[in-house]
């Protein structure tokens, strides 16, 4: 039994502002059905940049519904500038706190709100493109983790999992999360000196990394990858199985394949998908 506050219980029992705004000025999304929670938020914003109405639809547990519900109450009547200042911690505080394992529900509410504001203000994508996918199970990126660390003063991998879900399933990214924490708190991790590779060594090494490190991960999700060609730092690949045609394949390619190769080769590799 979770130790939910009266406020949380009140909100999941009688959620406020449930539904959809058909002519919304901004909509935001966070989470997915496969991950176990998903949220959509709809905003009406007037010409003075005031949020005049907000509605939500949430697939999730009691605290996810409560976080969404209280968030809509918090933003109606506020200006965009005020809304932008709201953090996930504000959402949790408004509910009188959430159990540690449930903090990610408040983060999800905040992410959906951020998504809506970014789309509304046209600030989309440039930051998102640079972002790196850390947790493949729950699609959590480096920036999301960094934001959670900053806003909530997180210190351990377990904290990060409680707030973002990253590392909560297969656990493969726990080392990466620790590295992000170390970087944030300025702890230097050992960097290995990597000798320069010859062209032949490099091809061999890239092939081994793809076979041993990348391909097994993709196969877990029913996909696969095939090395087609290497030209300098450009690596040409084909995606197979469930990966080909997957909406997230660009993310997979850039965030996972490219970053893994960069990390292990210590070179500015660029991965390019070859279509069939």
């Amino acid at each position, binding site marked *: 039994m979770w130790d939910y506050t009266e406020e949380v219980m009140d909100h*999941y029992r009688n959620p406020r502002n*449930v539904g959809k705004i058909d002519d919304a000025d901004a909509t935001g999304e966070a989470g997915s*059905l496969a991950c*176990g929670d998903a949220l959509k938020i709809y905003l009406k914003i007037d010409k003075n940049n005031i949020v005049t109405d907000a509605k939500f639809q*949430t*697939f999730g*547990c009691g605290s*996810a519904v409560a976080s969404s519900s209280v968030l809509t109450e918090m933003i109606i009547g506020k200006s965009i500038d005020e809304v932008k200042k709201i953090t996930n911690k504000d959402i949790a505080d408004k509910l009188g706190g959430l159990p540690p394992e449930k903090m990610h529900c408040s983060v999800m509410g905040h992410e959906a709100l951020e998504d809506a504001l970014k789309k509304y203000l046209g600030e989309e994508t440039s930051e998102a493109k640079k972002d790196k996918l850390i947790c493949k199970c729950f699609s959590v990126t480096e920036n999301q983790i960094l934001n959670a660390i900053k806003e909530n003063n997180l210190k351990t991998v377990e904290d990060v999992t409680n707030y973002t879900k990253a590392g909560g399933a297969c656990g493969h990214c726990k080392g990466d999360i620790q590295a992000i924490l170390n970087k944030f708190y300025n702890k230097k991790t050992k960097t290995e000196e990597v000798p320069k590779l010859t062209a032949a060594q490099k091809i061999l090494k890239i092939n081994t990394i793809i076979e041993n490190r990348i391909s097994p991960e993709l196969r877990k999700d029913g996909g696969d990858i095939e090395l087609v060609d290497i030209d300098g730092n450009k690596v040409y690949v084909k995606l197979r199985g469930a990966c080909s045609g997957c909406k997230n394949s660009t993310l997979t390619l850039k965030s996972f394949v490219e970053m893994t190769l960069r990390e292990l080769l210590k070179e500015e590799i660029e991965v390019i998908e070859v279509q069939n």
Partner: protein
Amino acid sequence: MTRKMVYLDNNATTKVDEKVLEAMLPYLKQNYANPSSIYSFGGISAQAIRKARVQVRDFVGAKSEKEIIFTSCGSESANTAIKGVLDVNKTKKHIITTKVEHPCVLSLYKTLEKQGYKVDYIGVNANGELDLDELENAVNADTALVSCMWANNETGIIFPIKKISHIIKSKNKETKLFVDGVQAAGKIPMNVEDAGIDLLAVSGHKFHAPKGVGALYVKSDTLISPLIIGGHQERGKRAGTENVPYIVAIGEAAQLAQDALDFEATTVKHLRDKLENSLIKNVFNARLNTSLNNRVPNTTNIGFEYVEGELILLHLSDMGICASSGSACTSGSLEPSHVLKAMGIPFTALHGSVRFSLSRFTTEKEIDYVISVVPRVIDKLIKISPFQEELATLRKHKS
């Protein structure tokens, strides 16, 4: 406002039968002697344990009461069996188990893997049935142990233990079969001799004894080393002064459960089927997350698509109904049920799965109440879901 509580989470734990409580009370009050003591006062305790051992012997169908060890819980029984068998077969490093075992057993195998054991996890099909060919292929000369549950805690699906034993023993006579009987005990007849089981774990609180007592059957020709080392108790297989009142309780509970097996197979099954059929028929986004056949009579697992399980449980709890879910959120683990995942249950229903488990104390009136409440709760929660289009399509298909 006080509402009557309807308890449909009997696979989690059960209420203590009044008769069990009555039987154990004297051993919490006046009969407190240590059963190892020589004086006749100690003899009262020793006599009570002897009686309980016979009751459990008959409950599991063992040849001799010497094959029964009392423990503190199901997890201790499983740990004693698994570690005990491996410890006396140090040269063999291969174990076979299933993908749908209880987390207590799976965690132990993950630990053993780190210690150098090779563990094969046999999969199940969409009906939850074990892949027996995969099992047969996996058994080899190095296989020390095959570990398999009798009935699954989440779906109630029964594994064909007798057939499994036959498959294993015909490939390697020396391979031991450990059966986690925790969810079968008190729900279906068990006979370790007939089924060809070497070790069987049961837990008292799953069949109306209190929490804090379990039992382990170890076939006379199966050697194990003890998990808890100390005194001579339990024929050297489990040290520690016997928990007399609780041992009396599990003995009494075993006998009562044995006597109630027909009732389980008829009345309890009838109520379970009534609940299941009504919900599947009347709730458009409900689907059965388990097979129709080969199940214990008290369990059903229903997936409510596009609605999250914890939210359903919280709203059911507000209506006085206790059930459980395989959703990620309820466990705090972030991951949904490994059992339903292994069966390939679609994720639309995975997170919205609800398990109802009845007992011999469940009444028809209670089931009728649940049948009237659940559709209203789901109807209310559907309105919050962001997947309105998917739900509309589902509704069209059902009608």
